[in-house]
Structures are given as C-alpha cells and as structure tokens.
C-alpha cells in the first residue's frame, strides 16, 4: 500500500527579472499607478527567442519552473538533480510552501520540515534550548512533543554542554547539527533538505544520511538536493532531473546521474544549430555553432592534449547590416569556479581583432579564440558564449554550452609525477636564475 504524499500539478513559477534585490517604494507605486491612469496602455511586445535561457524570459519575467508534474509516494526518498539554475531550489521552496507557485497547484500531506539553510529559524540571541522549542514550534510541533524528544535531539546534535549558550556563539557546524536534529526528530511527514549536509563534517554527514534513510523506512517522505551525487545514489530510491526549469527525467538514481553527467559533458566538442528555428538568436544575430578544436587539427574534439593550442570557434550570422558584434567567452571548471573570461576587444587581445566594434555587413562570421598550449590543467572545463553589440551588452547567451577535457600527455611531466598542485591552471612560465654574487 502506498499513499501519495506530494502532488504537483502543472506547477510553474516566475520571478520578476532584476527586481530580486530591489524594494519598491509605496510612493513610487502610487505615482506610477496615477500615471498609468492618464496613459493609454501600450504593452511592449514580449521578445521571444529560441535560446534556452531566453526562452525562460518573457516580458521582464523569468520562468524558474515550467509545468512540473510530480507525484511522490510516502516513504520515498527522492533526489533532485540538475545544473545550477535549473530550478532545484525553487522547487524545494514551493514544496516547503515558502514560495507560492504562479500557476498550478501543490498538494502535500502532513507536516513539512525543511532545511533550506544552516540554522534556519534560529534566533541568535536565544539559547540552544530556547531555539529548539522555537524551531520546533515553527516546524509545527506542539510543545509537549518537543519536550518529549528534547534529550534525543540534543544528543543527536552533540551540543549538550552548549544548551544554555546563545546560538550566536555557536560554530556553523554546531548550528547545522542542531538544525538537522530538530528537523529530523520532530517527525515531519515530509522532510526537505537542500545542500545543508555539506556543512557538517564527514562523520555527521554519515549520521544525517542514516537518519534520512531511517525516516524513509518509517514511511516519511524525504526530498534531497545535493551536488554530492554519491550521496544521492546511496540514499535515494528515485531521482528526478531538472533542466532549464523543466522536469525532464524521473527514474532510479543511477540512471538519472548517468544522464546528468552525460548532459554535463555534452557533446563532441561542438554545438551546432542547423535550422533557423532552434538556433539561439536575437534581432540582429543568430548563433550557428560553437566548437572546440585542439590536438593540432581543425576537427572539433571534446578531449584535447595539454601541449596543444585550444581553439574556441564561434560561428554566427549577422542578420541586420551595420551591426557591431562583440564575442565573449567564459571558461569555468567543474566546480563552477571562474577560470577566466575573454572578449575580442583590443585590451584582451594579443593583436587587435580587425572586426571588433566595426559594423558588420550581413553575412556569416567566425570568431576564434586561441587558448595557449600548456596553460590549462588536466581537468574538465565548461565554455559559455556571449554575443552582443559591445563588451558587456549581451544579446545571445549560452551558459556552459560546451565542455572539454584537457589531457596530460606527459609533456609537462619530466621531473615530477605526482598530481599537479593548483587545480585550475598550469601555465608554463618564464623562469630564469642568475648568479648575483659568486
């Protein structure tokens, strides 16, 4: 017998772009309301483009989630996998009832405990003991029940000697231990965990995973977002994959992780858009292809040798005459750390790009960026491409559209064979030692 515990029915959520950090003013709202009374309504036509990022943008709104259909049975432990910005956290926030969906409905059976951040709901001035009661109450627990489980919570969190200390004096590890202990022990019917486990130490992480699977065995529903794919594989019986705000796969974790990794290392060193309908475009520009070549050849390759120049080639069409074009690439590593960015502007070029800033006649163009040999380390890199009329103005944007792996051929390993220090780059530099005094 299984009971449906969570039900999402065509759930979509949109946010206003750029307004995330702005607070409105009542005076301004009233003023613009009065103004609009005297203005004839002329709605701007929403710009649409086939680009996956642009597709989520509509008239100043950004669709974080689109038509999510999901049904989870009680007792399920479900992992949510996806790239950054795929909508994982928004989905959890909707389930936790923090964010109201723009469309669709969400049904949840019973009490929801959510751990979306370290020490959620802790008040820094209150002691550990007082916070357990407050946090428990926020999670919907009667005081009598909290009292009953109090010792268990404190023992799990290993903070016995700090009970009467204000939480502001806790280390982040202590705070997250206590937060997890409260959330996990107060018997939520649904427990939602977002990355918080990455804060604690190894031993505590294991303890948390054990507790989570125990909750699942008790017939409670657990939802986990984690970049720790091994944890997802071990803990979950089911996983879903999100991409660009849509739920694209729902399967056993092994298969989802496989698909996710395949997506991450998408392709053969080339992304091509053959038909005009699917290619990323703006009014003036249309992206045709992006490719990486290395190994001394012109064939696109997703694996390149460390001792060869790497070329990132961007091909695009100019649709309107006299459009100035600037091409930009961002290179990030697997952890998402920024390695470098570059544009074809003179200040970033060894020799000026003849077409930079010039009005382009209609036609197809190919911009090529050359990354020197023996510069990147032997790891995977992700390339994002930006096209616009000038540096800093983005008309077309493709995030992490390509990835490539640099292989160590041994060319730089003549004296030293251990793993390379410094994970991101490994440049060959000019060194010279001179005698100063004999």
């Amino acid at each position, binding site marked *: 017998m299984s009971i449906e515990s969570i*039900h999402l029915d065509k759930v979509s959520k949109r*946010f206003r772009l750029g307004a995330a950090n702005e*607070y409105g003013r009542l005076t301004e709202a009233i003023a613009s309301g009065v103004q609009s009374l005297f203005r004839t309504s002329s709605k701007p036509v929403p710009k649409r483009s086939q680009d996956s990022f642009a597709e989520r943008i509509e008239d100043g709104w950004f669709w974080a989630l689109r038509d999510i259909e999901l049904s989870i049975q009680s007792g399920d432990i479900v992992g949510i996998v996806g790239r950054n910005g795929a909508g994982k956290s928004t989905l959890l926030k909707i389930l936790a009832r923090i964010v109201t969906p723009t469309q669709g409905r969400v049904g949840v059976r019973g009490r929801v405990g959510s751990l979306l951040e370290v020490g959620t709901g802790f008040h820094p001035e209150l002691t550990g003991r007082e916070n357990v009661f407050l946090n428990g*109450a926020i999670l919907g627990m009667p005081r009598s029940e909290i009292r009953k489980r109090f010792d268990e919570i404190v023992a799990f969190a290993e903070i016995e000697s700090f009970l009467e200390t204000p939480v502001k004096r806790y280390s982040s590890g202590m705070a997250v231990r206590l937060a997890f202990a409260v959330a996990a022990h107060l018997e939520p019917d649904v427990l939602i965990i977002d990355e918080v486990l990455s804060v604690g130490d190894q031993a505590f992480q294991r303890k948390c995973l054990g507790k989570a699977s125990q909750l699942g065995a008790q017939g409670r529903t657990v939802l986990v977002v984690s970049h720790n794919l091994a944890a997802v594989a071990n803990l979950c019986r089911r996983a879903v994959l999100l991409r660009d705000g849509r739920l694209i796969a729902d399967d056993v974790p092994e298969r989802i992780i496989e698909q996710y990794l395949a997506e991450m290392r998408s392709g053969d060193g080339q992304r091509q858009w053959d038909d005009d309908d699917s290619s990323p475009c703006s009014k003036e520009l249309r992206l045709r292809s992006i490719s990486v070549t290395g190994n001394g050849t012109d064939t696109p390759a997703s694996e390149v040798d460390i001792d060869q120049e790497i070329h990132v080639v961007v091909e695009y069409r100019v649709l309107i005459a006299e459009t100035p074009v600037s091409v930009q690439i961002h290179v990030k590593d697997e952890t998402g750390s920024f390695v470098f960015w570059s544009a074809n502007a003179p200040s970033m070029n060894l020799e000026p790009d003849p077409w930079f800033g010039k009005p382009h006649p209609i036609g197809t163009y190919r911009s090529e960026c050359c990354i020197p040999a023996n510069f990147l380390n032997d790891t995977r890199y992700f390339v994002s491409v930006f096209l616009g009329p000038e540096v800093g103005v983005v008309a077309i944007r493709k995030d992490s559209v390509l990835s490539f792996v640099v292989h160590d051929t041994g060319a730089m390993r003549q004296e030293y064979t251990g793993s390379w220090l410094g994970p991101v780059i490994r440049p060959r530099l000019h060194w010279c030692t001179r005698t100063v005094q004999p």
Partner: protein
Amino acid sequence: MAKNDDTIPPMHFYGPTDAFGFGQLAEIWRTRELLYSFFLRDLLIRYRQVVVGILWVLLQPLMGMLIFMGLFFVLGTQAGNSTVASYAPVILTGMLCWQLVASSFRDATGSLVNYRHVVTKIYFPRLLLPLASLMCAVFDFVIGSLLLLPVCGITGTSIVWTTAWLAMPIALWLIVFCAGCIAWLSALNAHYRDVGYALPFVLQLGMFVSPVVYDIERLRALLTDRWVWLYEANPIATCIGLLRWSLLGTAPPSALGMATAAIVTLLICFSGLAWFQHADQQLADRI
C-alpha cells in the same frame, strides 16, 4: 508502511482558499502554539537586553503622563474640563492606549522584514509575526494598566466600578483595530520599504489627532456637534473616549461617532486580512 490509515493526514493543497483571507484565521488558530512561542521569544529578547526590564513598561506611560501634566501646569491651561489633579488618570488612560497603538504599529511593521531570513526559508502563517508583536504590546498595556489604581488613589479620583468592567471589551475593540492596521502595515512594509520610514512621522501626528493628552470634551467646544462624529470615526479616539467614560465617568463619545468607528474598524480588519493574504503570495519573492 509504518503509518496506519487512521493517522494519515489529509492532502493539503496550497494557495488561497477564499478571496477574503478568512482561511488565515483558521490557520492561526491551528498554529496558536507557535504564536505563543513567537510572543515568548519577543518578550524574552526584549527583557534580556533591557536592564530596567519590566519597570520600563511602567515607566514609559508614567513619564509621559508627568511630562504632559507638567507642560499644562506651566502653560497654565487645562486640557480637560477638570482640575489638574483629576486630569492625571485621564491622561494616563490616553497614554496607555497610545502606547499600545504606537508600539504595536512600530514593532509589527518591521516584524516580517526583520525576520526575513526565516520567512524566506521556512513556512508558517506569516500573520503570526505581526500578531506576536501585537501581543507584546498588549502585555505591556495590561501591566501598565495597573498604574491606574495608585494614580487614581493619589489624585483622589474614584473609579466608576459599575461600568469599569466594560473597559475589557473596549480594550479588545482597540486591540482588534490594531490587528487590522498591522496586517496592512507589516505586509506593506515588506513590499514597500518607505512605509517603515514614514511610520514614526505618522505616529507622531496621530498622537495629537487622537485625544491622548486632552479629552474629547475640549474638542466638542471647538468642533460643532455636527462634525464631532467625523473626529470620532477614528477608532483610537472613540476607544480612548469610551475607556475614560467606563473607568472615570467622563462624557462618552457620540453614538454616531461610535457607529462610524465600528464600521471603520470592521473595514480595516477585513481589508487587512484580504490584503495580507494577497501580499503573502509574493512575500518570499519580494521581501
């Protein structure tokens, strides 16, 4: 499956159930323990950080009363139609009521914004936060009311015991009015930050627009009877007037004034509830 059928909670679908937001009231009743926890937390934090502690609650209205008595004594005028001594309890009831209004407005307006690190991370009925601030203000109000007995004793004013019990429902009226206002203010402030900046100014003005340091009798002489109901449409004015009438036997507000004030109170409460629910939908995105 460890759970039995009879313990399976119902599937709860989110989203507004009714346009007027009455569903929020049922939810607040369900989560009243949390309301108590928030109230306790606010109280604890307040008195942990303030050295004078509970004395502060008594000191504030008392000081306010003494300052205005001194002021009127120096100016040589009387704000009420009575002697300076018997004026003390009149001004004290006004001060107590005003403190309830001012401190609940002040604390509740910031309550959602100050707690946004929790509001954006965890769900609970948001209305609990401003209501907890209101409960703190009510707590102060109740403690402060105890001052009336010694002040009446010293000034030789006798409390009208036959109508004194009416003070309870009258105070409740004022509290309900405050609840409606803070539902408006707290959600407005989460969306529009300038509300918080404008509030101190509005409160300062409100203190003199309401009969806090004078009594309504005084105004009756200025306003003609035809217009006094408009003044009494302000529920704060009517409640203060009624409280003074029930406790001290001063003239009550006019019937028309009371009726208008009651309508105003209902309008603010219902619209506040509906507005709060509407604002709550975008709270985590906007706050």
